[in-house]
Structures are given as structure tokens and as C-alpha cells.
């Protein structure tokens, strides 16, 4: 075979782009506990791990197959409920014996995966007959249906207070009894790595590639011998499986599952994670899950309007950076390595300053407005600078910053187009 026929990336490049990132992830996961994280840091990281797997599973549909789903939490929730019931069976079996006596709690994400696959297989059968907008509508309907069933079928979903379990039961795999949060970390780290590696490997299989072909041009796929509907269905099942696996991780982490976990709220949040992170890139949802989980657990403490900020961020990404965070990082990297980097850098620095100015102005207006509506006369005073709600200076300053920032962005955008 001639060397001309050796298509595709070189061995070294394959290693650098496919194997190295996974090794880096594994090393990072192993080294994190050595930094001595606090308890709250551990619980944040555990949540990030769960959301990474969940967001990646969602992106198998959105980013890789071009299927917009509004009900992905259904598979997360059903997988999680399966896992929490399994944990309770393990607890019972510790006394009564039987199959579950030999099943470690460490392995319940496998149960979550199986339930997710089952749910995806059943629900996907009718809903994958349609693509695009009808599919999105069906997913919304199914989500509503399952979420309301969650409150009605008490013996399965536990009603409003949900079903709780105890992770410290059964046979401790790898010597982990999963009591302390630092032990749960290892459990989460293990399954996060398995999830990331498996879903990345999936993109490199015939089905994974054809899923991307369906996303690009489903009409043509049927003329190369593939049934696009069948491809969508298979990906849907697998995506449900990984969502269920994330649910299983969550069941062990929180030791409780409530019907809220099946609702439209987490379904919407996972969409935001995948999209803000960058649905076009494999790593996008990982970034989105990390950012949004961090923001949700920290920002929500000191900014009551954090959902408003989240909405604004989402709209900004949709309008101006459809590649999401991953797209921004990639274009900055490409922009710096290609010739003409200096001019580009000046442009970006200008846009960054203008954007920050607009953001600061906007934040001041929103925060002052939130305090006015609360009516306690509280004054917004970040870094000791007071912005009195009655002072004209507050509104003039904030308004000026917002206007200046927005005009700056507009000016730089026009300048960029002219170049």
C-alpha cells in the first residue's frame, strides 16, 4: 500500500487529540484530592462530575445527531430512581440475602444505565419517528407526562418527598464504603471518566459517524444505504443510557431522588449546559456543565437574579457565539497561532473591555432594581461603593456604562467586518 493511501491524521496526532486528553482527565481526577479540597469543594466537584456525564449524554442528541430534546431529565430521573431502588434492595439483601447482597453500591450507575436504555428504547420508539420540531414537541410532551406520573405513582417515585436510600450498604468495592464525601469523590471520578471515555469512543464508531451525517444532511443519509430514523433511534437509546448512568451517580451522591428531577427544569438546564459549553464540540458540554454547576451553587448565593443572568448568558451565546465556550476557546487559540495575531488581539481586547463595561452597567441596574422591588431599602454596595436607588448618579453611571459598552461592541463589530 502506498503512503498516499494512508489517509487521516498521523499516529502522533491521533494520540495528541484523542488519547492525551483522556489521560490528562484521568490524571486530573486522581490528583484533585491531593490538593486537599474542602467538603463543599468535594460536593461541588461531585455535582460537576454528574452534570458532565448528563450534559455529554444530552449532546449525543443535540450536538451529534441534531435532535433537540426538551425532556432529557426523564432518562436521568428514571435511571436515578432505578439506582435508588437498587440501593434499597442492596440494603434489604444485606439481611435477607439474594442477588442484591453481592451487588456493590459502587455499581449502581450500571443499573441507571440499563433503566435509561430501557426508557430510551420504549419512549424513543414513537418519538424518533419524527425529527426536528415534531421531535422536540414530543419530547416536551413525554417530559410533562413522566414528571406528572412521578407525583401520582407514589410506590415508584415516592410522591413529593421522593425515595431515599443509604449508600453505606453491601459489599464495599475497591474498599470504598462510600461514607465520607471524599470516598464518594472516587466513585464519581471513576464513573465520570468511564462516561466521558465511552461517549468519546462512541463518536469514533460507524454509528457515531453516521449520527453526525444525519445531523449534517439526513436526506442524503438515506441514499447511502442508512435509515436516518433508525440511526436517531439507536443514538436516542444510548443517550438515554448515559443520562440514566448520570442519574445513578446522582442517586449515590445525594441518597435521594424526588419527582422534581424528572421535570422540565433539569431538562432545560442540561440544554443550557450543552449549548453554552458548545454543542458542536465534544468537550463543549464538559465546559458548560462545569461552569453552570459552579455558577448555580455559588452565584445563586449572592445574586438573587442569577437565573436572569443565566438567561442573558444563554441569549448572548445563541446570538453571538453559537460555538459556545469551546468555540470561543478554539477561535482564540486559532487566532493567536495564525498570522496577523496582533491585529486580532487588539480587536478582541477592545471587545472584551467594551463587553465588561456593558456587563458592569447591566449588573448594577439589575441588582439595584432587585433591591428596590424587595422594598427593604437595602443599598447595593459592591466593593464598598454604594449605589443608592434614589441617587440619579447611580442610574446615570450605570446607564452610561451600559450604553458606552454596547456602542463599543457595535463599533468593534463594524471595525472587524471592515477588516
Amino acid at each position: 500500500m502506498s503512503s498516499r493511501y494512508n489517509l487521516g491524521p498521523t499516529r502522533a496526532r491521533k494520540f495528541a487529540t484523542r488519547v492525551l486528553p483522556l489521560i490528562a482527565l484521568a490524571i486530573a481526577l486522581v490528583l484533585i484530592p491531593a490538593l486537599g479540597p474542602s467538603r463543599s469543594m468535594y460536593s461541588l466537584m461531585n455535582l460537576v462530575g454528574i452534570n458532565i456525564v448528563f450534559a455529554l449524554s444530552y449532546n449525543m442528541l443535540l450536538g451529534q445527531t441534531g435532535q433537540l430534546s426538551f425532556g432529557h431529565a426523564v432518562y436521568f430521573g428514571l435511571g436515578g430512581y432505578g439506582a435508588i431502588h437498587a440501593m434499597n434492595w442492596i440494603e434489604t439483601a444485606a439481611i435477607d440475602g439474594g442477588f442484591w447482597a453481592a451487588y456493590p453500591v459502587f455499581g449502581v450507575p450500571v443499573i441507571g444505565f440499563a433503566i435509561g436504555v430501557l426508557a430510551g428504547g420504549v419512549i424513543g420508539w414513537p418519538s424518533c419517528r419524527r425529527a426536528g420540531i415534531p421531535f422536540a414537541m414530543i419530547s416536551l410532551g413525554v417530559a410533562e407526562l413522566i414528571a406528572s406520573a412521578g407525583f401520582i405513582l407514589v410506590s415508584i417515585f415516592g410522591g413529593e418527598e421522593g425515595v431515599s436510600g443509604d449508600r453505606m450498604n453491601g459489599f464495599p468495592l475497591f474498599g470504598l464504603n462510600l461514607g465520607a464525601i471524599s470516598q464518594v469523590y472516587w466513585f464519581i471520578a471513576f464513573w465520570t471518566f468511564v462516561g466521558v471515555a465511552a461517549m468519546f469512543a462512541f463518536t469514533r464508531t460507524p454509528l457515531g459517524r453516521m449520527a453526525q451525517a444525519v445531523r449534517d444532511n439526513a436526506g442524503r443519509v438515506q441514499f447511502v444505504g442508512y435509515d436516518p430514523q433508525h440511526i436517531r433511534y439507536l443514538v436516542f437509546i444510548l443517550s438515554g443510557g448515559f443520562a440514566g448512568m448520570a442519574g445513578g451517580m446522582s442517586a449515590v451522591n445525594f441518597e435521594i431522588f424526588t419527582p422534581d428531577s424528572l421535570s422540565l427544569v433539569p431538562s432545560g438546564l442540561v440544554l443550557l449546559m450543552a449549548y453554552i459549553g458548545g454543542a458542536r464540540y465534544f468537550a463543549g458540554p464538559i465546559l458548560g456543565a462545569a461552569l453552570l454547576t459552579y455558577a448555580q451553587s455559588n452565584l445563586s448565593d449572592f445574586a438573587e437574579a442569577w437565573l436572569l443572568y443565566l438567561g442573558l448568558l444563554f441569549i448572548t451565546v445563541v446570538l453571538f457565539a453559537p460555538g459556545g465556550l469551546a468555540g470561543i476557546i478554539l477561535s482564540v487559540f486559532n487566532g493567536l497561532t495564525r498570522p496577523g495575531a496582533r491585529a486580532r488581539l487588539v480587536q478582541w481586547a477592545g471587545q472584551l473591555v467594551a463587553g465588561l463595561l456593558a456587563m458592569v452597567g447591566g449588573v448594577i441596574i439589575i441588582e439595584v432594581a432587585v433591591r428596590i422591588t424587595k422594598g427593604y431599602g437595602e443599598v447595593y454596595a459592591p466593593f464598598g461603593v454604594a449605589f443608592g436607588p434614589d441617587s440619579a448618579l447611580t442610574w446615570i453611571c450605570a446607564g452610561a456604562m451600559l450604553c458606552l459598552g454596547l456602542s463599543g461592541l457595535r463599533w468593534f463589530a463594524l471595525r472587524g467586518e471592515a477588516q
Partner: protein
Amino acid sequence: MSQSVLKLTDVRKNFGPANIIQGVNLDIVEGERHAVIGPNGAGKSTLFNLISGLLRPSSGEITLRGKTISGLKPFHINRMGLSRSFQVSNIFENMSVRENVRCGLLWSMGDRYSFWRNIGQMKEAQRKTAQILEQFGLLDRADEIASALPYADQRALEIAMTVAGGADVILLDEPTAGMSNTETTRAIAQIRAVSEGKTLMIVEHDMGVVFDLSDRISVLVYGEIIATGTPEEIRSDPKVREAYLGEEADFLELTA
């Protein structure tokens, strides 16, 4: 006469009151290069859409090697060995040229919906992809994103994807549309090479290409085939001359 491969029997297609195809009978035989010509709006593309399964005939029957294919889904027909290209380039735009061709031949490699095999390790698929790319002069552009290709190369890729799966009945819908003379010559040479030993059905506007390439020609006018025959027979057919007024009739005149 050789064996019939593709047979259309009284195929009709109407969209509401508009009768686009009005009773087409056609017999494509093994190994021939068969051109379908006709004025704009005669229904040539509709005919291809009916054969390839994109549209379902209102009545009539289409058979491929004796098996009925009218009413089957496009992917079923493709798996039975009939592959088509499109008049407007219809490629996977965000994928590389190499991946586009690989998508075209993946089904024939037998791994189908596999989600447990590493596609990079499928050496036979790699080798075949490279071979097809070389035949179409796309090897040097293998890693470029398909949407970034120049127009003529996108057309070549379109045909490369069509033949990649090894189908032995190939339908090409205006493969040289919008190409320059040099590009057309190159494209026809490629088509000639890849259709060797296969059955080719082609819709084409360039009469030079049609009369040079085809073994037989069918003339479609207002959804009806008014004549089928060798290039000589078509050239001297009075009905064809009547249908082709103006430029193309002059061409028939000149090449007679």
C-alpha cells in the same frame, strides 16, 4: 440483447392536478450507459426521484433485477444496488472530504449500525476510501471540510459518494451542471471510468456529452418518453427534432 436491469412500467406521478410523469415505460439493460434528455420541466429529476425512492409513483411499477422497488424507502433501494447523485450538491458539509466518501461506502463494509468498532481501525474502508478519492482527483483534498471545496470538486465528491458503496446501477442527475468545459471533460472521464462494467443512467443537458457518452438515449417531453434509441436513431427521429426547437435542434443538425 442483454438482460434488463431496471424496468419502468407505465409509471405515473401527479402532484394534485399536475401530471408530471404520464406513463413512462423504460427498460435499462445490463451494462449500458443510458441518457435521459428533454427540455426543462419535462420531469427528468422527478423520474430519478421516483426510481430512487424519494417519491412514490402514483401508479405503475418499477423493478430492479425483477424485484419491485416502487414504494420502497430510498435506503432499501440503495442497499439493493442502486445509487444516485443529485443535481444540487448534496453532501455532508461539516465533514471532511474523506469522511463524506467513507459515509458513502460504510454500509457496504458490513458494520452498519455498529457502536462497538473503532472506525479508524477499519482498514478496508480506509483503503477503499483512498481509492475512490484518487479516482476523482480528491486525494490531496481529503482532509478539507467538504463545504470549503470549490464547486467542481463538490460535484466530483457528490459522484464519488454515489459510487463509493459499490452499487452497480448508478443514476447521475446532471453531473456536469455549471461546470466549465475543462471541468466537464474531466468529470466525464471520471464518470466513464467509474461506470465501467456498471449500468449508468444519466440526466444531462450538454448534448455533446450525451451523444458521446451514451449507448442509448431516451427523450422525455412533458412527462412522456417520446423516443428511445441509439444516438443515431435519436438524431434522425422527427419527433425529437420537433420537440427540440432552437439551439439544441441545431446541435442535432450539426452532429448529424
